[in-house]
């Protein structure tokens, strides 16, 4: 398929300036681009060209910072280029304008925080936008639940896909690759023989590092070797110090415990600070969607202390990989829980090991990407009554991806999990539910099953059958179970051994390179796309839509949202 991913107007992709959404997109692209022809539309940045193609992914950059300006660039771009699916990140306010210029495309929306709240988007526009999207991906159950509470009608479209982390970039301090770096950083900053508590995040009231600072005098009475590292920008800046940074600086000045402040650390080297630390503390006071730092800390083998706010506790298995402060407003909570962790060194160590295990088994980008592929498949499939016959091939593709995703996800869950944990069971339920979901509400399925009899799980171990299948359904990506997990350099090396091996067995060897072979199949996705185009060209539906656009352009003199809503409603009725 031809897919457009639209980033937010705030930061550029690749994440040269950081940013959770930017990191998320970049983390997934290597996997997604094996299946689809992908364009990433983001904001311009002096250090990056306005157009480029890297590793098969096309990047287009238009002016941003302000949503209004960015929106204009997005629309202009879409007027000249069409896509099968448009994946919009965290900007529900882009949905209607995008729909107007891309009447045929499926729209998937990713939600990374509470952008559906009434102060961010009017209920009228939100309702209309929700109707236009095929599905909504959220980074935590928390984010999904907020949308559900506001707009119950969206419930069926919402899926949580937990984010991921590069477990080769973020490694524990004891890992051979990191030992030297760990020692150097600790030496350079006077942290030798210290127990290093690390915070990473914006310096803001919401992120709450002041609560950690205020917990330190009490902690210093119990532990003599403590030090704190605050990784976050704006600490040093003189001109634009916020009241909050000034406050935290004033509070830190009087401490006896050393506090190392790093200022802005480039995302490409931030793993070094994780490797240098001993305990990760997230102090968030607000209902945070689910901060990326949790995944990074897990991958770096750090025990985690986080707060019972928003989605953060969803990735903590109590006493397994960390603890949760229930009432983070009061610094006492941090005193108590940090004491609990630091007092039992073997438990502390085990939490770190468990965190690393979870990162490798549950939170790698390939798992995220496979779930996104599944969602895209769903989106294309929801193409309502007017799906042309030839589109069934795309359905086959989607089915296979689904099986692949669900099989892998189930296998990938840690086998040793004692399920006294809410989050874990949610995740498990979700992945387990997938195969059933795909089978249930689908009319077309039986027809399709006939067409591709040799489908799903048994393809896993039977390559012969698979290739028969491939011939039969030309347009789908081929090597079903493994082709989203690949690195071309390793292809030849691991081909033989990997081909027949269920993915989980690799995943269970945490530190081993886990790479599978795959097949580049751009030409085939192209042909799917062409078929869609062709069939749509012939379909009456398109003619109607085109006429509608011409009509509405004549009617609406401006792009005001209410006009858009009216127009889209009209369009819908005619369909």
């Amino acid at each position, binding site marked *: 398929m031809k897919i457009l991913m639209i980033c937010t107007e705030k930061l550029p992709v690749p994440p040269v300036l950081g940013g959770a959404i930017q990191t998320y997109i970049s983390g997934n692209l290597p996997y997604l681009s094996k299946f689809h022809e992908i364009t990433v539309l983001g904001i311009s940045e002096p250090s990056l060209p306005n157009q480029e193609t890297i590793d098969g992914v096309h990047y287009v950059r238009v002016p941003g910072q302000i949503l*209004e*300006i960015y929106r204009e660039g997005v629309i202009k771009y879409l007027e000249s280029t069409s896509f099968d699916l448009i994946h919009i990140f965290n900007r529900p306010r882009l949905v209607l304008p995008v729909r107007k210029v891309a009447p045929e495309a499926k729209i998937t929306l990713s939600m990374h925080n509470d952008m559906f709240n009434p102060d961010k988007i009017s209920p009228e526009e939100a309702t209309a936008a929700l109707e236009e999207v095929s599905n909504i991906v959220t980074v935590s159950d928390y984010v999904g639940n907020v949308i559900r509470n506001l707009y119950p009608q969206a419930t069926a479209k919402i899926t949580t896909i937990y984010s991921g982390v590069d477990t080769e970039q973020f490694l524990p301090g004891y890992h051979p690759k990191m030992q030297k770096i760990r020692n150097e950083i600790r030496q350079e900053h006077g942290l030798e023989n210290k127990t290093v508590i690390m915070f990473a995040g914006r310096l803001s009231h919401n992120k709450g590092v*002041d609560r950690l600072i205020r917990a330190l005098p009490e902690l210093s009475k119990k532990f003599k070797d403590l030090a704190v590292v605050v990784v976050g920008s704006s600490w040093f800046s003189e001109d634009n110090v916020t009241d909050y940074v000034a406050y935290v600086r004033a509070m830190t000045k009087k401490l006896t415990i050393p506090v190392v402040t790093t200022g802005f650390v480039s995302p490409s080297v931030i793993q070094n600070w994780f490797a240098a630390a001993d305990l990760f503390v997230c102090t968030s006071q607000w209902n945070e969607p689910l901060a990326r730092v949790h995944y990074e800390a897990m991958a770096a083998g750090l025990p985690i202390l986080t707060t019972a706010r928003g989605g953060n506790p969803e990735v903590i298995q109590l006493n397994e990989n960390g603890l949760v402060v229930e009432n983070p407003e009061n610094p006492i909570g941090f005193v108590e829980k940090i004491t609990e962790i630091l007092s039992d060194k073997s438990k502390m160590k085990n939490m770190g090991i468990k965190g690393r295990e979870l990162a490798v088994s549950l939170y790698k980008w390939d798992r995220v990407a496979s779930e996104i592929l599944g969602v895209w498949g769903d989106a294309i499939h929801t193409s309502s009554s007017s799906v042309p016959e030839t589109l069934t091939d795309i359905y086959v593709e989607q089915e296979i991806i689904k099986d692949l995703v669900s099989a892998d996800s189930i296998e990938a869950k840690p086998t040793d999990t004692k399920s006294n944990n809410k989050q874990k069971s949610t995740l498990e339920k979700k992945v387990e539910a997938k195969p059933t979901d795909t089978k249930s509400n689908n009319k077309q399925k039986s027809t399709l099953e006939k067409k591709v009899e040799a489908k799903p799980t048994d393809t896993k171990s039977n390559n012969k059958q698979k290739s028969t299948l491939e011939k039969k359904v030309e347009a789908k990506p081929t090597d079903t179970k493994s082709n989203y997990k690949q690195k071309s350099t390793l292809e030849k090396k691991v081909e033989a051994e990997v081909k027949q091996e269920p993915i989980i067995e690799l995943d269970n060897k945490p530190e081993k390179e886990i790479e599978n072979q795959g097949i580049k199949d751009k030409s085939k996705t192209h042909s799917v796309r062409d078929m869609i185009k062709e069939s749509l060209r012939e379909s009456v539906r398109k003619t109607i839509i085109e006429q509608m656009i011409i009509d509405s352009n004549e009617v609406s003199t401006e792009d005001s949202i209410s006009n858009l809503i009216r127009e889209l409603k009209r369009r819908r009725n005619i369909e």
Partner: protein
Amino acid sequence: MDHPIIEPWEADDLTHEFYVPDYIERIAQDVLESYDLSVNSIQVITTKPDKGGAIWKLETTSGPKSLKLLHRRPTRSMFSLGAQEYLVKVQDARVPAIVKTKDEKDYVEAGGKLWFVAEWIEPLEPVTKDLEGAKHLCYALGEFHRLSKGYEPPQQSEVASRLHKWPSSYEKMIIKMDWFRNIANVYHELPASTHLLNVVDRFEEQARNSLTRLNQSSYSELIKKGNAFWGLVHQDYGWSNGQMGSNGMWIIDLDGVAFDLPLRDLRKLISGTMADLYRWDVNWVREMIKSYHESNPLTAELYEILMIDLSLPNEFYKNIKEVVYEPELFLNDQTTQLIQTIVDTDQTKWPVLKEIEDDWRGRE
């Protein structure tokens, strides 16, 4: 024309009040090239070095004008300029008209900022610092709010709205009270720390009560009417930005206008004026509100929100929030005095608010 990006500049003992860096002066000259004006003299009137803004007065053959370098983001400035144009052209309000460039634009973009030329209103006199003057200000403010209704910002501009932000700004005040307390505790040895600790609980409690009342009020219903319904607030209104001209009160310096309920400007004017008096005076407060009401009628619901906003510890917060920057310098004997004055003035506030709380009862 290529220009360097305009940045804030250092203002120190070596620079005078009206110092503007040379490169900005040069940009100003270039900007004036875009106008069909014959300029006889140009003179800096005011500067904002910390933000990177300035105002010049121009004497031209077609009369005095002002040239402004707006320090905000260009898209934000477009919002304000659109408002100024709307008020003059559509509503015939007494705010300075924007002078168009040679190609009929409202502004020039140079050095990464917006510049514009407007009429320099003469004569313009500050109103007297008495109740009569205060009433003039309030009436003119009401008029400004009323005329700004219906404004639709240009497509390109950033929509500035505070309509939804009231609860979070109240919460912020409560949060910062805790900062003041924590700093006073950590710097307990400084002269003003004890005094600050003695009163901070009281003011925090006041802010909490205000927030509770706001949440119980009709605020959440009122804001549903939307930006254009309520119109703009000035955000920097007072004795210098509202002045008397030959044909009535003029309102100037519209750069910070934003959509909001039309109450914070009035609240600031009232509480600031009471602080200047060192006591709350029921007659002044009533008369000021009445003058405002004459030009922009307040409903009972809006009146309640005004009462709630007045109940915030506005003056304490405004004066103490500096403490986070350099506590060692701030928490001195002078601040002890300041805290005492604020507490004394605050004690006269509550009987006044009590007395006027039902003034709007029964009105629509």
